[in-house]
């Protein structure tokens, strides 16, 4: 209970700081809102335009594709809102030697990561875009919304976010051993997920598809959960959750190993006059 209180209290502090940052300048505020919306829309626009032009893609109707895109936009929105300030792009923090900033704080590392990236005001716009697209698709599809379906939706969304986060941390752990070379590796891993999350994977060959659902689990960011939620896939309801758990475990082990290495070597990125090399 005490831990939960601490988490909420830290989230409140982050929310306050974010609100102050967001409202310090009206122009900045506007640019921030517009850029987030445009970015999230642009991320799904290509597939939407194709689905519109070809009246669907493969077994997916246009509206089903829009649902998947909305789901993908929601995942991105949640990551933007909950894991900013380079928590999602963790290799930047590690590579730049900024883990020290976390380690000197009187709180566990996991709590810092869970709360430091919370941006409920400046980060919510991409999330709202996702809500809009998903709601529109649900209306078009005439989906029957039951409590069970809602739960399933929430569970899938949560596990999809975990997969993106774990994937980033897994790759990002490389920065412990190669701080300079791997400083941007999390961004690349996340960009890879974001770029491909909107594509329906049905046409992929069996081996590539398998790799997209295991080694590079981009299929679980939107495609597979959307298939489940739309009833296109009737089996494997727990696959997304299982993959999220396995990937989190692997990422946890890799990160722990990296931290052990970091404890011995520290960061050598900063030069005597304060610049990074």
């Amino acid at each position: 209970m005490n831990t939960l209180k601490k988490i909420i209290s830290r989230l409140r502090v982050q929310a306050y700081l974010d609100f102050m940052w967001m409202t310090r300048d009206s122009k900045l505020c506007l640019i921030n809102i517009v850029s987030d919306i445009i970015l999230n829309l642009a991320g799904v626009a290509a597939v939407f335009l194709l689905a519109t032009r070809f009246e669907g893609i493969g077994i997916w109707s246009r509206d089903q594709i829009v649902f998947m895109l909305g789901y993908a936009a929601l995942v991105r929105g949640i990551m933007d809102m909950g894991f900013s300030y380079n928590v999602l792009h963790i290799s930047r923090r590690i590579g730049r030697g900024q883990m020290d900033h976390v380690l000197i704080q009187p709180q566990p590392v996991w709590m810092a990561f869970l709360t430091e990236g919370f941006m409920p005001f400046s980060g919510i716009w991409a999330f709202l875009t996702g809500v809009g697209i998903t709601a529109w698709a649900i209306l078009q599809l005439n989906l029957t919304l039951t409590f069970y379906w809602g739960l399933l939706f929430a569970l899938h969304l949560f596990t999809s976010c975990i997969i993106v986060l774990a994937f980033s941390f897994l790759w990002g752990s490389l920065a412990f051993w190669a701080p300079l070379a791997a400083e941007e590796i999390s961004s690349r891993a996340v960009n890879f997920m974001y770029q491909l999350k909107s594509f329906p994977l049905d046409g992929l060959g069996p081996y590539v598809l398998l790799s997209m659902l295991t080694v590079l689990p981009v299929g679980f960011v939107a495609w597979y959960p959307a298939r489940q939620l739309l009833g296109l896939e009737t089996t494997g309801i727990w696959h997304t959750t299982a993959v999220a758990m396995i990937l989190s475990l692997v990422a946890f082990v890799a990160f722990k190993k990296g931290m052990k290495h970091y404890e011995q070597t520290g960061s050598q990125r900063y030069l005597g006059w304060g610049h990074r090399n």
Partner: protein
Amino acid sequence: MNLKKHWKTMSVVATDSLHDQGFVLIGNYTLRLLRVVFLISLWRTLLPEEGDISGMTRDAVLTYTLIAEIFSGFMSVRTGLDEALWRGDIANRLLRPVGIYGQFIAEMLGDRIPNLILFSLPLFCIAPFFDINPLPANPTSGGLFIVSLLLGVLIGVAFDFIFASLLVFLEQSVYALMQIRDAVSVLLSGAIIPLAFLPWGLGDALTWLPFASVASAPLRIYTNTGDPIFLLSLQVAWTIVLWPIAHALWNFNRERLVSHGG
């Protein structure tokens, strides 16, 4: 113009990017390869094997996608000027004994060379394994593609300087504007989806914009799915229009430069 300095800058940047550890390079290239595989499978799902849609056969679209990835560094032109503004090291650049345009162009080309050798060339060679013909539609298309690609790079660089000038003028969040620009320009340039496949006649309108001259034009020339005379004329026109604007805006705004980062 002293090309030796530019050549040196290019080679320094080219070798510098190889300082990345092997696994980082391999990781990057794997991700790029997978992106191509995704797009290829998408086209194979969408397009019929025979016949054409909007003037493009499936084979032409597959070649288009492959060549777009192979030359992606030259079709999404980024000189790094916006990042130099963001980081604040633009001040150092202005002190160097090399012209600002030449300096950034040399850096950009230097950055692309290792990718061209280590990723693009092998991808070109393995294309037949994906059942894709990577060669241009005919020798003339191949020759004109080079000209078109160079014009596209020139337009892209002019764009970069115009954009950077606006960043300085507006004094707004460089990072946010860079992100918007990247997201929108890739979509509008036809680098991912051929413009002919956009709905509501959007492609016809977008063809006239400079974004399309950077990526769509050279790719259409390569695959012989567009009129090369029209596309090249349009590119020349945009080059003539954009460069004076870029030069004027940059000259005006460089005096307003303040450090955006550090």
